[in-house]
């Protein structure tokens, strides 16, 4: 099923390794096949209580009143958790790295913005008792109009979803409602192109569907701290988010995890830990908050749907001379990680190809649905679907083989990318050639001879970078990273013992600050206040 082509790029590798490259058995395999790998829920506590959440049945509504008296008296109920109980009831996940404004409550109190939004919690001696108590809660709603389509949400007069971003788009740098990419002059290029193709692509939301649902158990420990057993994909991310929402110093929380029954991005959002910690502190007892599969499927955050418009200008000889992309991320009712995905999407345009004129606008749009989150390929999967379908259409339009078309346009070492960085360490062409051989996909000789390491350079994009350099005061232009003149030899000989502790591996020097552009995000290190 799997084979290696060690001959390709062999001159760039030292394959003289002992442990790296070996098919060593997984450290956790024995635990998996004996059912002893310890997931968060495989820890038992006496007198464990259960937290269940009342969720909004409406996509958009004002909460007029909540009557939880009967629920509070129900059998087995230890505590009701209300919005007013949450110490810091407004957050956004990336506030930990100072990106974005707090826009999402842990428990909604005045308005609900998506079907399933949490309103109230019941802590009881069993899940069944908690669910039966939830059924006794009476909430009076005033339904509001809702918007579900990303382009409708951007029209003037659209229903405003998110109070912090009333125009339904995330705000970048305090003033832009979308992310831009400008390289070269697409309009001029479209006029010169032999074929211009425009299309619309729509990717569905996707449910992560891990075998283990989101969940955590919070346990007051013997030192007055709270231990939390969690399914999170990011231990300190969840710890710091929980500390913020509970107004606790970070060292009052002890997070334990590391063995997770599938994540795929759906366990980054810290869905259960903040409220289960609150529940444990309010009751003094261990509490579990475990998503049912229905909750996981309908109210756990999905991969956000994306709508992508692509317009390509192509020459008869096969060169793509212009690519214009307009894309909309459906973030749902709150930001979570979608703001970051939009930038990653822009970072991925126009794909692994050298195109001299690229123009993109990508929006993070709020709608009245479950907030979206990261999923395998975040910011890239839907775009790759759109780009690679478009590549095929382009090839057909000019009568060229789809694989040869890709090889022709593939980026090579030394090419200038639309983000004004030199391409390096490329290998798209070699992947295509290897597959063509294995799958008996005919390639003409000249395409079988092409290489990522030959033929690249800034001549392929001409003066594109200069044509769209934003007017700026006298600041130095960004310095492109030098491309290697010849393949780098990377040696993994073990270093002789050093006298001093080793420095971290060399990292890329950041590009010089460009045109005084505002920083995307502030410096790490101020994360824990």
């Amino acid at each position, binding site marked *: 099923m799997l084979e290696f082509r060690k001959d390709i790029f062999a001159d760039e590798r030292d394959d003289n390794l002992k442990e*790296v490259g070996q098919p060593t058995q997984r450290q956790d395999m024995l635990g998996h096949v004996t059912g002893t790998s310890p997931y968060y829920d495989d820890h038992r506590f006496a007198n464990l209580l259960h937290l269940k959440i009342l969720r909004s049945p409406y996509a958009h509504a004002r909460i007029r009143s909540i009557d939880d008296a009967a629920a509070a008296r129900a059998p087995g109920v230890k505590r009701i958790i209300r919005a007013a109980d949450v110490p810091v009831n407004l957050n956004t996940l990336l506030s930990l790295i100072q990106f974005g404004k707090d826009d999402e409550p842990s428990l909604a109190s005045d308005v609900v913005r998506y079907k399933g939004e949490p309103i109230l919690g019941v802590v009881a001696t069993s899940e069944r008792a908690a669910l039966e108590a939830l059924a006794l809660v009476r909430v009076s709603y005033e339904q509001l109009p809702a918007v579900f389509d990303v382009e409708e949400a951007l029209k003037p007069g659209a229903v405003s979803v998110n109070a912090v971003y009333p125009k339904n788009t995330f705000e970048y740098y305090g003033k832009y409602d979308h992310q831009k990419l400008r390289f070269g002059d697409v309009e001029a290029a479209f006029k010169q192109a032999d074929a211009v193709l425009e299309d619309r692509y729509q990717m569905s939301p996707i449910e992560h569907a891990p075998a283990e649902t989101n969940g955590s158990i919070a346990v007051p420990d013997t030192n007055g701290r709270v231990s939390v057993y969690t399914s999170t994909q990011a231990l300190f991310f969840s710890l710091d988010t929980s500390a913020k929402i509970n107004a606790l110093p970070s060292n009052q929380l002890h997070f334990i995890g590391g063995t997770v029954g599938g994540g795929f991005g759906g366990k980054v959002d810290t869905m259960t830990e903040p409220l289960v910690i609150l529940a444990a502190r309010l009751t003094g007892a261990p509490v579990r908050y475990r998503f049912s599969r229905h909750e996981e499927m309908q109210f756990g955050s999905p991969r956000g749907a994306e709508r992508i418009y692509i317009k390509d200008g192509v020459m008869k000889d096969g060169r793509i001379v212009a690519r214009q992309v307009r894309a909309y991320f459906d973030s749902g009712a709150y930001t979570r990680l979608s703001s970051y995905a939009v930038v990653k999407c822009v970072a991925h345009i126009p794909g692994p190809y050298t195109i001299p004129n690229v123009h993109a606008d990508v929006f993070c749009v709020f709608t009245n649905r479950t907030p979206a989150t990261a999923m395998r390929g975040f910011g*890239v999967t839907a775009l790759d679907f*759109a780009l690679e379908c478009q590549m095929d259409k382009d090839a057909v339009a000019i009568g060229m083989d789809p694989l040869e078309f890709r090889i022709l346009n593939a980026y090579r070492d030394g090419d200038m990318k639309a983000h004004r960085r030199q391409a390096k360490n490329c290998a798209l062409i070699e992947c295509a050639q290897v597959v063509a051989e294995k799958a008996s996909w005919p390639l003409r000789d000249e395409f079988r001879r092409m290489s990522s390491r030959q033929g690249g350079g800034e001549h392929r994009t001409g003066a594109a970078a200069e044509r769209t350099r934003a007017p700026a005061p006298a600041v130095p232009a960004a310095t492109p990273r030098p491309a290697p003149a010849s393949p780098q030899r990377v040696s993994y000989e073990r270093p002789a013992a050093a*006298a001093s502790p080793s420095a971290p591996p060399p990292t890329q020097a950041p590009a010089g600050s460009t045109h005084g552009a505002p920083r995307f995000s502030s410096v790490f290190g101020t994360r824990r206040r």
Partner: protein
Amino acid sequence: MAKHRGRGVATINYPIGMNLGGDPSQALVHSNPTGKFTVTLSSIDLGQGMKSVTRQICAETLGVPVDDVYVDTADSDTGPHCMGSFASRGTHRVGNAVMAAAREARAVMMEAAAEELEVDPGDLETDGRGNIQVKGAPHRSISVRDVAIAAQFRQGKTISGRGIFLVPLSDVDPETGEMSPATCYAHACLVAEVEVDDETGEVAVLKMTSAYEIGRAINPKLVEQQLVGGSWMGMSHALYETPEPYYPNTRDGPRDFNEYLMPGPGDICPHDIIVLERPAPDGPFGAKGPGEMCANPVLPAVANAIYNAVGVRIDELPITPEKVLRALKARGGAPGSGRAR
């Protein structure tokens, strides 16, 4: 009333690590009294093999057998900060942090061994089997176990190390989008062969052939796990999955696995995978990370294969039988059906 075969291709790359960088990971490595090593992390194993990959990287860097290394994760009291397991960052970021910590520990180990053997540390090498020997004179050697004992109980040295790996955060120009998204990229090409039933609209994936360039395969079996599992998920995204079947209308969302469809063991197909390695200059032993990209090329390759098979383009996912049939109807039937196009 026929089945039509077709092939489609996609080529992609994938950025390694959090976009723009700024996502650090740290690691600690230390030896116990008898020369066995523990890597302490707060990184998360979701099944992708974090514990296993970091174990091999540590063993390689230290120069000891992998059986002498154990990875302990994740506990916030003992594990230093790691940003988390996402964005295909684990092997690259955590792997580099582990290498740095292991290098520091190794340096102390070699110093201690040099003192025991009365040579210069530069004259020594590890044999990868638990011993440290003089280069060119392997009979002059000492076990790692004995070095650990000597270091702790006689020399007063701690065989341990700390490591952090950070790609400094890149700026973004809001007008032009100029930025440094990633320091390295993995690559892939995938061909999918499908069979489309023009009466039911069902699409069966018959075969996949792919090539993945991932810098360095730390463990070929773990790479295979990702590439096989990921291609299944890609097929699932392309043809089956949606929590909103009538998006953007939110009605009829699935509530259980009877309603949220994914392909089962009877729906999978043979997949020939070829791995290429062009080391990333800043990857641990050149490694990048295949965890996310392995689903991506399947979606467009399948869509392109459907076009090749029956001449219809479906640009909305998932490509359900309903969508295929509607498209065929609009087209006037599948190729060879005798109807006018």
